[in-house]
C-alpha cells in the first residue's frame, strides 16, 4: 500500500464458474469478505462480460496493475482456460509487484513458486472432465454402478 491509489481490485464473473452460476451479489460478498479477513484494502469489482472466452475486463484490470497492490478473483477458475494465456497473466501480475488472490479457493499467487500450486489444481480440474462420471457424483439416489449394490458392499474378487 505504498501509494494512495493502491489497493486490491475485485474481479467477478457473468459466466458460470465450473458449471455453476453464482449470483454476482454472492460473488461480491465472497470477494469482499476475503479482503476484510486479510486486511486488504478493497476496491470495487470489475465484472467480466458474459460472452464465452471474453477476457476484456481482465485485460482492463491488467492495464490497471501499476496502480494496484493486487487482484482478487472470485475464483481461480475464472482464469483463462488457455494455459499460455494464464501463465502470461501470472507473469504480468508478478512483474508489476502485485499479487493475485482467488477468494473462493483462498489461494494467493505472490511469487513464481505459487504458480505450480495454481496450475496443478487447474490442470487436474480440467482433466477431471475426461475422468469417469466427468469427475462428479450426482446425488440422485442411484448408485454409480449399474446394479443396485452399493460400492461399499463390493467384495474383493
Amino acid at each position, binding site marked *: 500500500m505504498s501509494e494512495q491509489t493502491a489497493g486490491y481490485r475485485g474481479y467477478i464473473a457473468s459466466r458460470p464458474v465450473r458449471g455453476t452460476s453464482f449470483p454476482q451479489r454472492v460473488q461480491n460478498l465472497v470477494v469482499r469478505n476475503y479482503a476484510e479477513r486479510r486486511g486488504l484494502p478493497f476496491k470495487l469489482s470489475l465484472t467480466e462480460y458474459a460472452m464465452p472466452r471474453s477476457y476484456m475486463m481482465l485485460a482492463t484490470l491488467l492495464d490497471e496493475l501499476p496502480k494496484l497492490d493486487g487482484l482478487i478473483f472470485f475464483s481461480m477458475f475464472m482464469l483463462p482456460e488457455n494455459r499460455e494465456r494464464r501463465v502470461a497473466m501470472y507473469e504480468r501480475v508478478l512483474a508489476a509487484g502485485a499479487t493475485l488472490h482467488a477468494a473462493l479457493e483462498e489461494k494467493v499467487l505472490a511469487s513464481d513458486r505459487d504458480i505450480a500450486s495454481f496450475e496443478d489444481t487447474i490442470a487436474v480440474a480440467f482433466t477431471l472432465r475426461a*475422468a469417469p462420471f466427468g469427475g462428479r457424483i450426482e446425488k440422485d439416489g442411484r448408485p454409480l454402478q449399474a446394479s443396485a449394490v*452399493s460400492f461399499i458392499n463390493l467384495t474383493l474378487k
Partner: protein
Amino acid sequence: MSFLSDEDRTRSEAFLRDGYLIVPAQDRQALDRIRDFVAQRTAAFLGCPLPPAVQPFLDAIAEHVTVERLNALRLHLIDALLGEPWFRQAYYACGRGVIESIVGNELAMQRGIGFSIQLPQDESSVLPLHSDVWSEDSPFEVVLWIPLVDVARTKSMFLLPPGPDARWRTRMHEFAASGVDALFAAVEDDLEWLGIPYGNVLLFTHTLMHGNRVNREPTARWSMNVRFKGLFTPYSDKQLGDFFEPITLRAATRIGMTYQLPGGFDE
C-alpha cells in the same frame, strides 16, 4: 483379478468389512510434533504454564477453559496449525501407508482441518448421527481421524458398521417425520464406539452413519479429521480447488495432462 499386495488385501478386506481401520501412526514423530504444538499453543492461548506431561494437560483441559471459550480456542488452534508449513505434510505422514492401501497413491487432500475438543459433560459439542455423503461429500472420500489423547466410549466417536448401516439406510425414510434423534435411538444398539489409544490413527468411510454424544468420561477428547480421496475419482460439492488440492500428482499424469497430438494435417 487383483494384484494387491498381501498387506493391501488384508487392509482392504478389513475396511470393507468394518468400514474403518485403526493402525499405529506411520510417522510417530510427526504425530508427536502436532500434539506438542497444539499443547503449546493451547497453553499460550489460555495463559497457563505448559507442564512437561502433555497428555494429562490435554486430558484435564476443562480445568483451564470454559465451554464459552472453547470455540475461540478451537478456531485459534485451527488457524495456528494451518499457518504452519509442515503441518499438512505431517498429518498425511501419520496415515500415508494406510491411505495408499485404501484409496491409492495419487491423492487429493482436504485443505482445511476439522478440530474437536469435547469437554466432559459439554452438551454443545454433540455431533448428531449423520453420513457426510448426505450433505456435501463424495462417497469416494475417506477420513483420517487422529486423536491427540487416548479415546474410548463416549470420549470417542461412534460408527454404524457396514451391515447395520446398509439395513438402516433402506429404512431411513421411516424416520422422515420423527427426525434424527429417533433414528439414533433405533440404531443405538448397533453402534460401535471406537477405542483408540494415542499414537494410533483411524481411517474410516464417512458413507457410514457416525457421530458423537455428550462426553461422559472424566477427561476431554481432542481429535482432528481430514479427508482424502483419489485425485481423479468423482467429487461432490466439496470440490478440487476450494476444498481439496492435489498432493501427490504423478509424472505420468503430468505428461498426460499436457500431451498434445501432432497437428497441421489437412483433408
